[in-house]
């Protein structure tokens, strides 16, 4: 499949309005404004577009659920991209910001909203400046603001800068943060489609999701759905990182397999190494083993293989990676990012991290392995949002596939892999 979302990403000035207009930019918005809002929602439903943020929920359904009797309504665009291994929205906003703006405007028109907030993570300041300039251009040329293109439809797009919180990527936590509070999740239901930002109906959509909307409107839902396997249509951005020769964002249809992405697009693992494990959808999803590489990288196929496509953040790990170290590294992340609202997650992630640290240092006991499982069982499914389940996944999945590595650490009283990428000082501690 030829790239669609990132077709011009490597060309200079691809982020300017001038460039965008030369490549059929804002044609989809013009077309959308001639249709009824319901027709747009039907088109998105027919295309089978599934949310690109992680859950893969059908976007058309989400928009249909938005309570159309209550006003005002909002779109909150989730540009908080914080899942370890994910960097696709960054590329889209940096190289093709007008596509996102057009997606926001069409989305607003479809659900009858007049304001879209783009919640961008604080660390993306350089991307924010590009996006801000693009929004300014769009206003000046009448693609945003009052009475867009003479249709009588008003739409404002504002950027809201976050300040460093992974949890702000959770949809209700994002809304809390937009309201000027701590980014902590709300109890669900009610879902944001009914009670969202400021208590009003809100559609929370990922950047890549909204960027797909203009394509669907311009080229039709049939074209879109036919790009990929059934129920997994459209182009998809894959973020490949870790132990590969050419890490980067690669656009493909969901017909592609993990092997093609890793060995083909990303050039495979470095010479002389072998692939040990793959995390297919960001740090919160279960590991896939080398014998599962021929799995199609679609929402459904990866779920069938026992993991999740998530945000399509493929982290490749070769034979120099210590799996206990990996779990410790990720639990350090989750311990730090737990928002602290639910006790099992706030306390449990700290306990898990400390036990993993002990094992990695060579001070573990065999009974710690059962302790890890039992603490995990007391976090997973017992928290308001999916963070709890995400946080225990690295522990459970490494225990499942690499229990022997844990046991070797405990038996030998040291980390059994001294990886060359690890800092010498820490390696010395391990020796």
């Amino acid at each position, binding site marked *: 499949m030829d790239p669609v979302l990132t077709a011009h990403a490597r060309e200079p000035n691809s982020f300017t309005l001038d460039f965008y207009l030369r490549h059929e930019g804002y044609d989809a918005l013009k077309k959308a404004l001639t249709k009824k809002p319901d027709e747009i929602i039907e088109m998105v439903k027919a295309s089978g577009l599934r949310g690109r943020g992680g859950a893969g929920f059908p976007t058309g359904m989400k928009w249909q659920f938005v309570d159309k009797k209550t006003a005002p309504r909002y779109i909150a665009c989730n540009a908080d991209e914080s899942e370890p291994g994910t960097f696709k929205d960054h590329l889209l906003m940096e190289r093709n910001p007008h596509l996102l703006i057009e997606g926001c405007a069409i989305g607003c028109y479809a659900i009858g909203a007049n304001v879209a907030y783009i919640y961008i993570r604080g660390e993306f300041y350089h991307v924010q400046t*590009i996006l801000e300039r693009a929004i300014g251009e769009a206003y000046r040329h009448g693609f945003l603001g009052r009475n867009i293109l003479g249709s009588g439809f008003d739409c404002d797009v504002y950027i809201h800068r976050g300040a460093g919180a992974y949890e702000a990527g959770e949809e209700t936590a994002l809304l809390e943060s937009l309201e000027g509070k701590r980014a902590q999740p709300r109890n669900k239901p009610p879902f944001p489609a009914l009670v969202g930002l400021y208590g009003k109906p809100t559609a929370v959509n990922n950047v890549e999701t909204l960027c797909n909307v203009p394509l669907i409107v311009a080229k039709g839902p049939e074209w879109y759905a036919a790009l990929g396997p059934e129920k997994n249509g459209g182009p998809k951005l894959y*973020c490949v990182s870790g132990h590969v020769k050419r890490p980067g964002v690669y656009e493909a249809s969901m017909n592609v397999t993990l092997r093609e992405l890793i060995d083909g697009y990303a050039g495979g693992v470095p010479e002389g190494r072998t692939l040990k494990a793959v995390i297919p959808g960001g740090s919160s999803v279960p590991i896939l083993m080398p014998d599962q590489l021929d799995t199609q990288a679609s929402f459904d196929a990866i779920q069938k293989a026992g993991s999740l496509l998530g945000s399509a953040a493929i982290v490749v790990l070769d034979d120099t990676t210590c799996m206990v170290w990996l779990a410790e590294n990720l639990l350090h992340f989750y311990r730090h*990012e737990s928002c602290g609202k639910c006790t099992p997650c706030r306390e449990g992630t700290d306990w898990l991290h400390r036990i993993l640290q002990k094992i990695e240092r060579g001070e573990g006991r065999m009974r710690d392995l059962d302790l890890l499982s039992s603490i995990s069982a007391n976090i997973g499914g017992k928290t308001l949002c999916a963070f709890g389940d995400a946080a225990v996944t690295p522990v459970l999945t490494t225990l499942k596939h690499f229990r022997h590595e844990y046991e070797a650490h405990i038996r030998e009283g040291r980390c059994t892999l001294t990886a060359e990428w690890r800092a010498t000082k820490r390696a010395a501690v391990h020796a």
Partner: protein
Amino acid sequence: MSFHPKMAYDATFHKSARQLEDEGPPFVYTPERRARIDEILARYPPDRKRSAVLPALYLVQEQQGYVTANGIRHVAEVLGITRADVEDVVSYYSMFFTRPVGRFVLSVCRTLSCAVNGAERVTEAICDRLRITPGQTDPLGNFTLLEVECLGACDRAPVVMVNDSWHERQTAETVDKLLDDLLRRGESALTGCHLDIEKRA
């Protein structure tokens, strides 16, 4: 206090490592920043001024380098909310500093993809050169070193964020040169985004 019968929180557990803000000198926004806050407030419904607390705090930090209790008081007055509301937010988000920081804040990403590509060596090189540990500022006040969680640049690992701009694919050697450049050329050594887009346009 810890909820666990035996394990006390260690000093690095983030919820307890936070320090209360120092009072700082009296604080009001400069007229330009005050104007910017009014412009930002127009983005939110009139009865939802609280939404602007993050941008308001960024402006405080921009003006005095970090967020003080007096800065918090001023934000509370401007937005018509309580100081506790503002402090609640300040203590939650990791990008607000409640203590003075160096002229350049070096944030080294330590999460998986950066870590497997040698982020620890970069941190170690900075520590050795400046004789500080993560979380500290060097005695001259030039650099503050932080180890941060995933910055979202995993394809260009390891990444070091200097103030607001990214410096990618760092090694112990390149980061040494980066520190030299920052000392010699100041802010102009911040190359920012890897594609240098703003300069090209």
